[in-house]
């Protein structure tokens, strides 16, 4: 009988190559999360015990022992974070892009072209992440990093709650073992323990959400976009599993920032959306990404991208992916839409400011 590990790795029927890759990714994500969890608990416990023991007379934690524990716990957090970063890098960038970046291949920087336009049109924004040269079509767009910041936020909340809960549990344990009869810290620990469990789950969910569907790449035949002109879009979806639904939409948002009492609020509203592509049941393998092309046109007479201090008009290509057993994943690609009528070249414009 073959050992379970060889069965797991070799049996194509039981576990396909893509599934193995996916499980490897999930295992790394879970392992990394557990390492961070244990590291944070250990760190909080060490700091709490050291603080408690230095205040009392027992002195059961010496300074060298405390430093050793500090280093070990921080190393666990560091390794966990490193594994998360590696995991994120593998899903956020394609093999080609990783290779290109590693070999420091020169990427085409569209910002140089856009910079001149920006000087002429200061209210038309440029991409926050500059498009680069495409492999199939002219330009490659890059997804917004909003989801990544969501993960960083979840990690911070997770570390804070787990650290506080661990510290309170240690203090309570200390009081119980010394029979002090004061269990207020124990009562305080309960909500923090609940919050710690919730934040750990939330962090893990965010991590799996980002890693469940592999990198999505979008290329466009020409850029920036002009209303009324037809463009070809190349969608490339690599990953590790069967995607139940892939939905691509062109969306225009209006975003307004305003004061409400003492708060500053931002409201965002979709004012136009057009489905560009939709397909169910896509099998994506680690060896061959799913690729398709479709047309896109920003309607003639549409408002161009606009950005002022408190008001924005944004165009985006949004991709929704649904993998089995995972929450819906949204990836957003910013499109800069130029005014459809630029008029003549602004040669002697500066002189026009003179009064007649």
């Amino acid at each position: 009988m073959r050992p379970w590990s060889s069965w797991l790795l070799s049996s194509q029927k039981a576990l396909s190559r893509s599934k193995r890759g996916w499980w490897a990714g999930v295992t790394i994500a879970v392992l990394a999360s557990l390492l961070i969890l244990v590291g944070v608990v250990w760190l909080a416990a060490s700091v709490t015990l050291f603080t408690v023991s230095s205040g009392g007379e027992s002195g059961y934690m010496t300074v060298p022992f405390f430093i050793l524990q500090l280093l070990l716990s921080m190393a666990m957090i560091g390794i966990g974070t490193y594994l998360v970063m590696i995991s994120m890098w593998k899903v956020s960038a394609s093999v080609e892009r990783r290779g290109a970046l590693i070999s420091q291949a020169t990427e085409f920087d569209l910002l140089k072209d856009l910079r001149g336009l920006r000087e002429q049109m200061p209210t038309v924004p440029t991409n926050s992440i500059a498009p680069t040269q495409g492999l199939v079509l002219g330009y490659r767009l890059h997804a917004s990093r909003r989801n990544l910041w969501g993960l960083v936020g979840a990690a911070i909340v997770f570390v804070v709650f787990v650290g506080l809960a661990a510290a309170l549990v240690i203090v309570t344990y200390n009081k119980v073992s010394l029979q002090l009869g004061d269990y207020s810290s124990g009562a305080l620990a309960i909500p923090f323990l609940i919050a710690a469990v919730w934040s750990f789950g939330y962090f893990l969910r965010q991590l799996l959400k980002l890693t469940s569907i592999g990198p999505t790449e979008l290329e466009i035949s020409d850029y920036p976009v002009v209303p009324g002109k037809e463009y070809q879009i190349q969608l490339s979806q690599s990953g590790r599993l069967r995607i139940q639904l892939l939905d691509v939409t062109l969306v225009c948002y209006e975003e307004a920032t305003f004061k409400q009492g003492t708060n500053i609020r931002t409201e965002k509203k979709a004012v136009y959306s057009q489905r560009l592509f939709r397909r169910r049941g896509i099998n994506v393998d680690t060896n061959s990404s799913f690729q398709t092309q479709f047309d896109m046109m920003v309607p003639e007479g549409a408002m161009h991208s606009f950005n002022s201090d408190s008001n924005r008009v944004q165009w985006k290509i949004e991709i929704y992916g649904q993998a089995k057993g995972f929450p819906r994943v949204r990836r957003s690609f910013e499109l800069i839409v130029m005014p459809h009528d630029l008029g003549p070249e602004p040669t002697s414009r500066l002189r026009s400011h003179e009064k007649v």
Partner: protein
Amino acid sequence: MSRPRIQINLTDEKRVYRPGDVLVGQYVIDNPGEQRIHAIEASVIWMTVGKGEEDMGVHFFDRQKGPFEVNHWNLPRKFSTVLPRSPFSYDGMMIRVRWAVRVRLFLEAESEVTEELFFRLGNVDSILGDLSG
């Protein structure tokens, strides 16, 4: 006490302009009364109107400092500017972008009189269609 009135006119009388078009106009101050005008400012501006805080951009600005001779008040004052490539006039759901010629008179006692004449830059549709996709 009567207050001065400002009358703004655009020479070609059209209200929709393309980028690069020359906006030519003039303004006249009527009924000056007995008040003194310290300064006159004429500008071509865009502004946002709607749910968000109001943003504004100045494309053309001219300030004339007084005091002005009483018999010079009624003289038409001309202005001209080549319109820029953006932002286009827009009537969205939460955001409106409007272009205007604004003339402001600074009177004595720190009071002001302002008049605006709106025009459109670019030909942007207000409504693109439904959101059904």
